[in-house]
């Protein structure tokens, strides 16, 4: 059933997708590639201008590293400081195959776990490289002064995370992302002082400038003055994060957006696997329509908390009045060996299922209990406090309920997007000269990301991969300074101007947030934790309508020439309204279930995700065709030489 | 006239000039150009002040020993260092150190205050401090009050504006001085200001000189309280004793 583009069983390489994968033994591929990559003469480096959009773990690390190498770097962030990037909110930790625990970890095992955890939808070569450089990341961060947790002997401590069998997660309390980002930020500030990097904060990228089929610059809007201007460069790097905010409510920051990658997509960059979304099972449930974002609580809570709901639908008794006999510990019942520790996607889907049966708890009935009563009775409140004290405090601050006395309520929330712009092994998109790093690319996580791997990938791309591969592109292209008065830049600027003007001239009766909220509901209902043909088609009907309503009835107050946060949001939501459609198209075309993508039509008799390797063992990369509703699908077939696809089982 | 002797020894106007030059150079050197360096100098000169008020307080308590011992003590201050140094030389050296300390303390504080004033050109409509810390928040006003008091006090007891002043008769001057109730009231109020200034000042010195650490903080605060109470209390019991006719 070829829904879009080429036939599903076509395994010929797609001419659009040259993944430039190295060959040979997997352990040597990255070394071989590094040797094959061309180098830029040290004295020539300053003649190359590099634009980096985004200052998080990927963008910040890349900007600092390229600055150190001597390139002439310009870095852009929409926030007021590079230190605000949302990488800062990552709690758990960062994986690395150091094998400090002597517990059988190795580069190969991290590689194996990541490919398997990604449900066999990632490239083996990429993942192996990620596992290799993970070791260097820890060295680098420690040297920067990142205060990782230590053992009494003064050596680095690790913990086991997200169901891994080995202890390979390095952490700094519950603020690992913050500490790693500050490390990158400080390295970046050092380069700003050295003059190799010029930082543009409160400056938002709104388009890519294409000259002769190559990315040669970006159009930005100064968020304070409203000035729209072009910055030209030899190469453009996007490290702008994920697009989880398409769901309106997610654990992403308020400003996290898809504009940079979406604009690049519309200029020719292929968008890979847009439907792969990770839903995190332990977030604080929504309390009302005013809710602006969701707060994640560490997965570690499931180590001691028991998940349950009432057995009867519509049972409104307070939890302490529901006797054991009337409770359903559904994870323990369905997965006796893993119990409450089943992987994120399984835990999330089951929570949705019981809520769909009207057995959910709390306001709106979208929540399940995470009960610590047994653990407190067994270990004492003090032990629980020492393990989770800060999480319990945070929960109480938000909900005004004391989790030592009342069971916590949790519900899944959108957390991470595995999809993103398609990139080759060298991290370059299908647009020559446009590189994409971190969560913004379709990355190394396949259809599902393992816990503590996001930080690893962002830093791997920024510190240790891009600085090599970008040199190869630049050395081949040669320095070519360009001023922003080329006609292509003027044309793109004019288009950006028009769009801003259009947004400001609608003056309708709906707010930007109102439309965004509705888009989020549609996406969550039909393209969320579980998807089916009928629902996705419904969403595909609704989204273009909603887009039309947005462009005819939204009210963006104020003017362009000053700080206008409504205008900023409007531009981002306008892009989400387009991207959402592509996500649904991708989800509809992929009739299998894999990782974060669960198609109700494709499940085992026990209700578990059923992959279809015969038909879907490929990366689905979408090309913008000029018609948002009819993109062209390109397929990059995935080969598995080292890890053989198996069905996951957590029974 | 002991005072003029001292000034003559230093060479009159030349003394004032060299003193001013010295103070200025200490201010510049100790303070450096940074706010923290200036604070360190304020702290160090503050410590000199603490030493002085403590010694002065101990001297005052000699009034309870009677007329002779305290008059003798007053005389000793002038004789100190003889015969190696000329009479009053040590006293004047100490006085100059003290005056320099006061000048540096005030000059640098004033500069820092100006820096802070400039740092917030537009204030808040409304503020509600979280940390109720009156001693810390009144350092500048309290310091100014103390300065005014010092001028008054010098005029009263050293320069002899005192109506019944007899040079060299410390005991007499003290008793007759404090029989005037308004003077005693001013004096006691000043001692309250001194206690506040000393409490925050002493704690602050440990912070500014980088001695303070979280685990010692409580001890240091207790120490600062004790010092403030002992010094201000030691001063205050003298006029109170005079007022209640315990010494006559």
């Amino acid at each position: 059933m070829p829904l879009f583009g080429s036939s599903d069983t076509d395994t010929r390489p797609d001419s659009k997708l040259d993944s430039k994968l190295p060959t040979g033994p997997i352990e040597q591929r990255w070394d071989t590639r590094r040797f094959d990559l061309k180098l830029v003469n040290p004295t020539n480096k300053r003649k190359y201008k590099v634009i980096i959009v985004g200052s998080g773990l990927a963008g910040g690390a890349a900007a600092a590293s390229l600055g150190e190498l001597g390139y002439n770097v310009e870095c852009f962030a929409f926030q007021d400081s590079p230190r605000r990037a949302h990488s800062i909110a990552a709690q758990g930790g960062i994986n690395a195959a150091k094998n400090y625990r002597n517990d059988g970890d190795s580069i190969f095992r991290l590689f194996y776990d990541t490919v398997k955890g990604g449900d066999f939808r990632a490239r083996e070569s990429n993942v192996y490289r990620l596992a290799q450089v993970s070791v260097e990341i820890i060295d680098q961060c420690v040297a920067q002064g990142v205060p990782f947790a230590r053992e009494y002997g003064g050596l680095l401590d690790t913990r086991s995370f997200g169901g891994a069998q080995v202890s390979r997660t390095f952490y700094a309390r519950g603020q690992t992302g913050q500490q790693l980002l500050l490390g990158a930020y400080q390295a970046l500030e050092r380069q700003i002082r050295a003059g190799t990097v010029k930082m543009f904060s409160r400056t938002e990228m709104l388009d890519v400038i294409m000259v002769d089929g190559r990315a040669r610059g970006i159009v930005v809007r100064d968020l304070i003055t409203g000035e729209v201007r072009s910055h030209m460069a030899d190469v453009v790097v996007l490290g702008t994060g994920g697009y989880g905010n398409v769901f309106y409510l997610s654990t992403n920051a308020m400003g996290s957006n898809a504009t940079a990658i979406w604009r690049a997509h519309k200029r020719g960059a292929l968008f890979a696997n847009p439907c792969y979304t990770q839903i995190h099972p332990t977030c604080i449930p929504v309390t009302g329509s005013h809710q602006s974002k969701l707060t994640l609580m560490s997965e570690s809570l499931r180590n001691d908390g028991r998940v349950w709901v009432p057995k009867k639908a519509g049972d409104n008794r307070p939890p302490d009045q529901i006797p054991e006999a009337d409770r359903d510990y559904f994870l323990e019942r369905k997965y006796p060996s893993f119990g409450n520790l089943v992987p994120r996607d399984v835990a999330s889907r089951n929570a949705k299922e019981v809520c769909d049966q009207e057995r959910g708890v709390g306001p709106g009935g979208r929540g399940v209990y995470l009960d610590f009563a047994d653990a407190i009775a067994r270990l004492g409140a003090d032990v629980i406090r020492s393990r989770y004290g800060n999480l319990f405090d945070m929960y109480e601050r938000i909900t005004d309920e004391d989790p030592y006395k009342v069971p916590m309520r949790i519900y899944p929330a959108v957390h991470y997007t595995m999809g993103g712009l398609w990139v080759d092994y060298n991290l370059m998109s299908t647009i020559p000269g446009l590189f994409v790093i971190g969560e913004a690319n379709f990355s190394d996580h396949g259809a599902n990301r393992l816990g503590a791997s996001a930080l690893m990938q962002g830093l791997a791309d920024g510190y240790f991969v891009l600085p090599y591969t970008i040199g190869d592109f630049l050395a081949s292209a040669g320095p070519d300074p360009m001023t922003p008065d080329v006609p292509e830049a003027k044309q793109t600027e004019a288009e950006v101007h028009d769009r801003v003007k259009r947004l400001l001239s609608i003056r309708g009766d709906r707010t930007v947030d109102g439309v965004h909220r509705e888009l989020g509901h549609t996406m969550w209902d039909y393209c969320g934790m579980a998807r089916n043909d009928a629902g996705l088609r419904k969403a595909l009907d609704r989204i273009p309508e909603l887009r039309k309503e947005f462009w005819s009835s939204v009210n963006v107050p104020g003017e362009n020439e000053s700080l206008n946060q409504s205008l900023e949001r409007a531009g981002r939501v306008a892009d989400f309204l387009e991207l959402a459609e592509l996500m649904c198209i991708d989800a509809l075309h992929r009739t299998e279930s894999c990782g974060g993508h669960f198609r109700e039509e494709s499940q085992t008799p026990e209700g578990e995700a059923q992959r279809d390797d015969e038909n879907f063992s490929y990366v689905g990369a979408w090309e913008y065709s000029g018609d948002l509703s009819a993109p062209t699908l390109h397929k990059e077939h995935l080969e598995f030489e080292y890890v053989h696809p198996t069905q996951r089982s957590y029974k | 006239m002991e005072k003029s002797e001292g000034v003559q020894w230093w060479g009159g106007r030349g003394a004032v000039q060299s003193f001013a030059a010295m103070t200025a150079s200490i201010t510049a050197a100790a303070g450096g150009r940074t706010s923290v360096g200036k604070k360190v100098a304020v702290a160090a000169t503050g410590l000199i002040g603490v030493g002085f008020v403590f010694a002065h307080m101990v001297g005052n308590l000699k009034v309870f020993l009677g007329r002779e011992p305290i008059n003798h003590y007053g005389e000793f201050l002038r004789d100190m260092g003889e015969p190696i140094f000329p009479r009053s030389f040590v006293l004047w050296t100490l006085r100059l150190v003290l005056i320099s300390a006061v000048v540096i303390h005030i000059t640098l504080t004033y500069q820092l205050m100006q820096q802070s004033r400039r740092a917030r050109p537009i204030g808040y409509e409304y503020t509600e401090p979280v940390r109720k810390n009156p001693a810390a928040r009144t350092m500048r006003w309290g310091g100014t009050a103390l300065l005014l008091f010092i001028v008054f006090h010098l005029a009263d007891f050293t320069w002899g504006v005192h109506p019944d002043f007899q040079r060299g008769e410390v005991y007499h001057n003290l008793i007759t001085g404090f029989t005037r109730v308004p003077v005693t009231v001013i004096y006691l109020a000043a001692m309250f200001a001194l206690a506040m200034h000393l409490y925050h000042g002493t704690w602050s010195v440990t912070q500014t000189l980088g001695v303070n650490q979280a685990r010692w903080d409580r001890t240091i605060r207790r120490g600062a309280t004790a010092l403030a109470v002992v010094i201000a209390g030691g001063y205050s019991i003298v006029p109170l004793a005079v007022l209640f006719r315990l010494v006559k």
Partner: protein
Amino acid sequence: MNLTLKVWRQKSANDKGAMVAYEARDISPDMSFLEMLDVVNEELTLKGEDPIAFDSDCREGICGMCGCVINGQAHGPDHGATVCQLHMRKFKDGDTITIEPWRARAFPVVRDLVVNRSALDQIVQAGGFVSVSTGSAPEANSAPVGQAVAETALDAAACIGCGACVAACPNASAMLFMSAKVMHLGVLPQGQPERYDRVSEMVETHDRLGFGSCTNIGECSAVCPAEIPMDVISFLNRDLIRSRAGRGMKRA
């Protein structure tokens, strides 16, 4: 519940600005303070007025983007938390709430409650880093760091860079922010080679940027969402004295 808000409105850096009163109706106690402002802004938008500009991003207390002075206190009445973590249940029906931007010469107002905090970045630029270029790092476990030292470093490194310390300080000093970084790097072995130059250059930059001078009042630490303790300032002072005593390489 219903509230009266008195909010600082200022169109741009050059505008004079004034306090303006708004009514916030039907506010749920479960809302965060910023969600309450979102509701007010939606109403303003529909009425055709300019919504109140304020910064926020992660809304979980870690990015440091949000911050305003609420009823005279930086980040409002719930201490050890940012504005985005403050919930409306801390207020009563009928309350009047004053909302003002951070006030400091080094933090000029951009619009309404939004201020420019790039001065904090400049302090970090002056020396708040370890000069280690990518790739040059030794094996991570080659320099052991005692657990207590690592914890002390992390306590200081927890600073989120929100600027509340400056806003709350009667002197508009950034000492707590700066000292947290000096202490974070100053206690770790990795930070030793540049320790004394770092502090010296950071303090000079701090003064040049127009921040005030610390008088050890402690208001900064009392409002700090990351609860950075006052003794970080003591640590900086000590290191500055040592730096001036000739331990700094450049000044030796």
